């Protein structure tokens, strides 16, 4: 890209006094005074969140009410501020979701550490953790802001599932094409 050298004209006498510029500036701010404020009255009015907004990380269930997390701990691994802590556990053989085998015994997200980067959502192979739209967060103690599994599921709710990976697995196990 060619560099274009702009010629700097010498200042006129009026410009040197600086006063016309001040007057001009005053004009601009004067006009600005009568423009409509863009302030949002926050607690009463809520901003419209754009698509892909990264709010509080939450755990979600599939439409059958099965917890999608299988405690693979990839989110715990990827989490830059180490906010996630998972204790894996085994699903008992007599449970209806026994074919999934593994589920978190405990799932903690320390919201005091979370930086809302969304890497956990990106890395999750089971599409179980989502940064949804909740963004306003407060508490009276540090302990209260370490979100436990039940709280995370409460925040997350149920999201539609397009893959039905584990349902297919269960169906295949029920009707295996044996030799």
């Amino acid at each position, binding site marked *: 890209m060619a560099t274009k050298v702009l010629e700097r004209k010498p200042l006129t006498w009026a410009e040197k006094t600086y006063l016309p510029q001040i007057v001009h500036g005053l004009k601009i701010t*004067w006009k600005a*005074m009568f423009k409509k404020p863009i302030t949002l009255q926050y607690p009463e009015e809520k901003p419209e969140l754009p698509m892909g907004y990264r709010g509080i990380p939450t755990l979600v269930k599939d439409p059958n009410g099965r917890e999608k997390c299988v405690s693979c701990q990839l989110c715990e691994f990827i989490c830059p501020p180490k906010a996630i802590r998972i204790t894996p556990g085994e699903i008992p053989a007599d449970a209806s979701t026994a074919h999934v085998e593994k589920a978190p015994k405990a799932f903690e997200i320390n919201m005091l550490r979370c930086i809302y980067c969304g890497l956990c959502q990106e890395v999750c192979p089971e599409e179980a953790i989502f940064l949804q739209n909740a963004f306003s967060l407060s508490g009276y103690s540090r302990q209260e802001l370490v979100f436990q599994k039940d709280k995370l599921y409460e925040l997350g709710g149920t999201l539609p599932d397009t893959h039905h990976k584990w349902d297919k697995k269960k169906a295949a196990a029920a009707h295996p094409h044996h030799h």
Partner: protein
Amino acid sequence: MEVILLKALYALLMIGAVMGLAAYSVLGERKISAWIQGRIGPNRTSFPLIAKIPLIGPALRYLGIWQPLADGLKFLFKEDPIPGHVKGIYYMMAPVLVLVPALSTMVVVPFGEYFDSAGKAYPLILADIDLGLWFIFSLASLGVYGIVLAGWAANSKYPFIGGIRSCAQLISYELVMGLSVLPIIVWVNAPGVSAGLSLVSIVNTQGGAWFIMTQPLSALLFLIALFAETNRLPFDMPESETELVGGFHTEYGSFKFGFFFLAEYAHMVIGSAIFSLLFLGGWHFLPWIASPWPASIFGTICSVLWFLGKIVFLMFFFIWIRWTLPRFRYDQVMQLAWGKLLPIALINLVFYTILVAFIS
């Protein structure tokens, strides 16, 4: 006895007016800056019972009318930490030293006129002394001591730099200020007239043309010097929060900081008052137009309100300028004072002296 009581009442009224103006100019500052920046400004404070009144309650709330009250209470009840490294007694003295001269100058400032039964007008003033203007300058220059002391007593680098800056800046601009007022004094005390330095006589001289018309350059110089003297942007070198944290008041908190805050706005109020007395005809209605109000108590109130209106306009101008211009660099501030304003002021003085001599 009656006179003393009257004076005391007047003094209280004045303190109330100046302090009230100062407090509400803070609100004005916040509101005007908000408007200029496309915001709304303080609109959350409300007063328990008044908030319930339909229309008026919410309107007052929206205007932030109670904000100064809340701010004052906040300053009062905040914890007042004193850093361990400060120089105790001076640290305590500095805020007082800043506020006292600011408030004392109002002794010689006339706020309007009242009329006796014969319809003769007298100025509303605490002490109409001959040396009114001189008194103001001498007191105002005391204000710098408070700032320098604050900077020094805080015993840390940013306040110290702020203190030094304000010291140099105030001295420089005081010179300009004094020189810009001299032509008016020369004018007022033209050969054969002996009006002295009294502000009342200066105001009375402006029954016809205001000095801003006859001496526009003096007015401009005075205005610039006034900005510098009150530490307002674009001359807020001692504070300049982007460079010096908070400048001279970095180490102050709570009500001591409130003192500085109040003093700055009190300075502005007094400064505006003086400017309108010197150049805007004081309580005179409009140039060459006699005051339309009757020579009665109602007229007195009108004159005071008219004068206050001029002050409020100037305050607005102060604030407007602040949110329009960026801050000067420090060397530019000094260069402006000594390199530009001082010679111009001198030429201006010589010019008007000769002019006055010619006319008379």
